[in-house]
């Protein structure tokens, strides 16, 4: 069938600059650049271009320019090009549209409507370059009260297991299979160097990464891939995955093509078979059932590791979170509307779930009202772009955040949303061994730890500006936030005042 879809991008090759070196041919995984042997020249098939810029970055003479195809449909706010092209694609294939990364639609980003405070005159700001600033965060269940032995001045209260983070930023769950082994290794090593945690996602833990176990969160999801005793023993934290912001309420299908020999080893399923994660965990149909799995995992690890539960941000998150805490979760993770994925139906990614800022504020408020906020740490994820978002999340009530997309961008990702194809030209979201080598874990780990260092310095700078010297002073302190351009209802849910008031 002839496709009616026009190319999204225009690829221009400057003939004066192009030296016919074929780097672009070798770098492109979407078959955009080809070498025409008869005419001895490199040509571009721009209909294949996904706009990932791999060729642009690697062209030694900067001969390539990729721009949006200027083809304009007749102006129509309702029938925008994306929707026209989606319909064409479905008319030509009859399938569900699959996509990658997070929601790219224009829903409000509340981080951009929140501003932070700073000290002026009435209390001094602190210079973090000269004075100690603390970002240390402990994840885990905190007691209602503590008792101290008055003689030895030691703690009498028996504490639930705590995990110390040097920075309140962790690497989000991205499974091996969705991302490459070198991405996993980059995150694991960066987490170890930076004193934080990385998350395996639901695809198991490769044997060569067991040595980073002390910085590893292992996931137990509905597919139970790669979950066995050693996997649980290796981890610092165990996370039960109920949902994901990019695809609340649905499961996952890792296509057989991505289940390579190595992926098969880690997932513990035969090579080439589809890895299907059912939508629900079939041993969890209620809060009571969730408690059952939480305590099964605590039994396995003899109560030495915090158990985290991750949900997608949905309408009833606050009530659900209350149930999760009462079910025994030591950490609850809320993944918002903008959370990303290696593959999800587009209609789900773009339409289901709520913004994480709203979910976070309502969960934190609810747990405080019920007097159980201390019983679990709150971690949020889904669209955290910079340290400003981190600071605002912490002020809204989060203990820490996960970054997924931001971490991948640090490794080269251009958010071209082709993760589901497995052809990632940057070698990130693929299991093709040749492509995997494009991420060098030595360099990857450095890029990621650099990012965390940069954000930590910025967080300290912001804290100092507010006249505080510990992240703990900002946590859940919504008085440090003000809203701009928000309605009364939005301000009310966020629990912040309007700027100026």
């Amino acid at each position, binding site marked *: 069938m002839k496709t009616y879809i026009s190319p999204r991008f225009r690829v221009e090759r400057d003939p004066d600059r192009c030296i016919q070196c074929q780097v672009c041919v070798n770098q492109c995984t979407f078959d955009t650049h080809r070498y025409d042997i008869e005419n001895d020249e490199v040509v571009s098939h721009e209909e294949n271009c996904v706009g990932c810029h791999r060729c642009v970055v690697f062209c030694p003479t900067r001969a390539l320019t990729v721009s949006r195809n200027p083809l304009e449909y007749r102006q129509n706010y309702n029938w925008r090009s994306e929707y026209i092209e989606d319909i064409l694609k479905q008319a030509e294939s009859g399938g569900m549209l699959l996509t990658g990364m997070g929601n790219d639609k224009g829903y409000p980003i509340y981080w951009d409507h929140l501003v932070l405070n700073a000290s002026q005159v009435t209390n001094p700001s602190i210079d973090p370059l000269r004075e100690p600033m603390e970002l240390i965060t402990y994840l885990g269940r905190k007691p209602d009260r503590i008792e101290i032995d008055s003689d030895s001045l030691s703690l009498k209260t028996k504490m639930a297991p705590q995990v110390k983070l040097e920075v309140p930023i962790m690497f989000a769950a991205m499974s091996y299979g969705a991302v490459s082994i070198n991405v996993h290794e980059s995150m694991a090593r960066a987490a170890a160097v930076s004193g934080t945690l990385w998350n395996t996602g639901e695809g198991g833990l490769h044997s060569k990464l067991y040595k980073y176990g002390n910085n590893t969160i292992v996931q137990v999801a509905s597919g139970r891939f790669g979950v066995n005793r050693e996997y649980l023993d290796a981890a610092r934290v165990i996370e039960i995955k109920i949902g994901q912001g990019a695809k609340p309420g649905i499961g996952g299908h890792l296509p*057989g093509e991505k289940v390579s020999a190595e992926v098969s080893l880690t997932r513990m399923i035969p090579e080439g078979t589809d890895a299907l994660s059912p939508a629900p965990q079939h041993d969890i149909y209620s809060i009571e059932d969730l408690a059952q799995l939480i305590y*099964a995992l605590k*039994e396995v690890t003899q109560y030495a590791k915090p158990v985290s539960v991750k949900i997608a941000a949905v309408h009833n998150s606050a009530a659900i979170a209350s149930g999760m805490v009462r079910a025994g979760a030591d950490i609850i993770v809320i993944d918002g509307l903008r959370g990303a994925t290696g593959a999800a139906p587009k209609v789900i990614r773009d339409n289901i779930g709520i913004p994480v800022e709203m979910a976070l504020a309502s969960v934190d408020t609810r747990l405080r009202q019920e007097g159980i906020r201390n019983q679990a740490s709150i971690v949020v994820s889904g669209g955290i772009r910079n340290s400003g978002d981190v600071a605002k999340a912490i002020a809204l009530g989060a203990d820490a955040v996960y970054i997924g997309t931001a971490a991948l961008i640090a490794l080269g990702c251009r958010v071209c949303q082709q993760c589901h194809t497995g052809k990632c030209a940057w070698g990130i979201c693929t299991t093709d061994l040749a492509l995997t080598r494009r991420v060098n874990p030595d360099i990857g780990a450095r890029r990621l730890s650099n990012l965390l260092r940069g954000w930590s310095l910025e967080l300290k700078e912001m804290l100092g500006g507010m006249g505080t010297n510990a992240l703990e002073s900002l946590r859940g302190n919504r008085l440090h936030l003000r809203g701009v351009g928000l309605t009364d209802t939005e301000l009310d849910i966020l629990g912040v005042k309007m700027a100026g008031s």
Partner: protein
Amino acid sequence: MTIDIESKVPIIDARGIRYRELNAMIRDCVSGGSRQIELRNVCGQRYIGTSLNKPVEINITGIPGNDLGAFMDGPRITVRGNAQDGCGNTMNEGEIIIHGHAGDIVGLSARGGKIFVRDDVGYRAGIHMKQYQDKRPVLVVGGTAQDFPGEYMAGGILILLGLNLGEAESHRANFVGTGMHGGVIYLRGHIDDFRLGKEIGMAELNDSDYRVLETYIGEFAGYFGYNTGDILNHKFTRLSPLWLRPYGRIYTY
């Protein structure tokens, strides 16, 4: 005194003990070198055998609670009574022998080990069992199952014997093998076509199928006092997935 450590086989009286305490006692016995443990008066305690990865024999009198042998890696548990839900959940290795019924999701996501249930099982038995290399979970059910047996099955062997069905009775589970994309179900007796999930097909057994059945039905018969030949001398159907990738063609890229 709820535990008799002096005897070679420790006997634990589980009456009135919470699961956490009971499992800690079991762990203590195992780390103390016991390779056989008797549990008496068990009444709903969860996670028995969960944290064990040694070849221990655990004999249970009473009704163990949910998640019996969840994540278990090696022990053999024998239950003189019924088991509840989640028996053998994500089990890696070991054996569970139930002299009675078992509840829902028996063998959920098991990747190894064997489960023998003398009587019936509840909903979604053997759901998402998977096999890999030499690991192949086996679930043998003497009676019949509720709906969705073998759902999402990605590997392993599920055998439904229907020994408690009358001559003219058939299995009444609906949606058998829905979403199944690996492994095999052997069903003794009759089941109507319309009760099968759309991802699986029926086939006659070949010699290698019978060898598999002889092995596991032999073990089953040994545990529960049946005659292997009598069980095998009956019509069996082999149910297996039609496609390895049942959901490979629903997306557009």
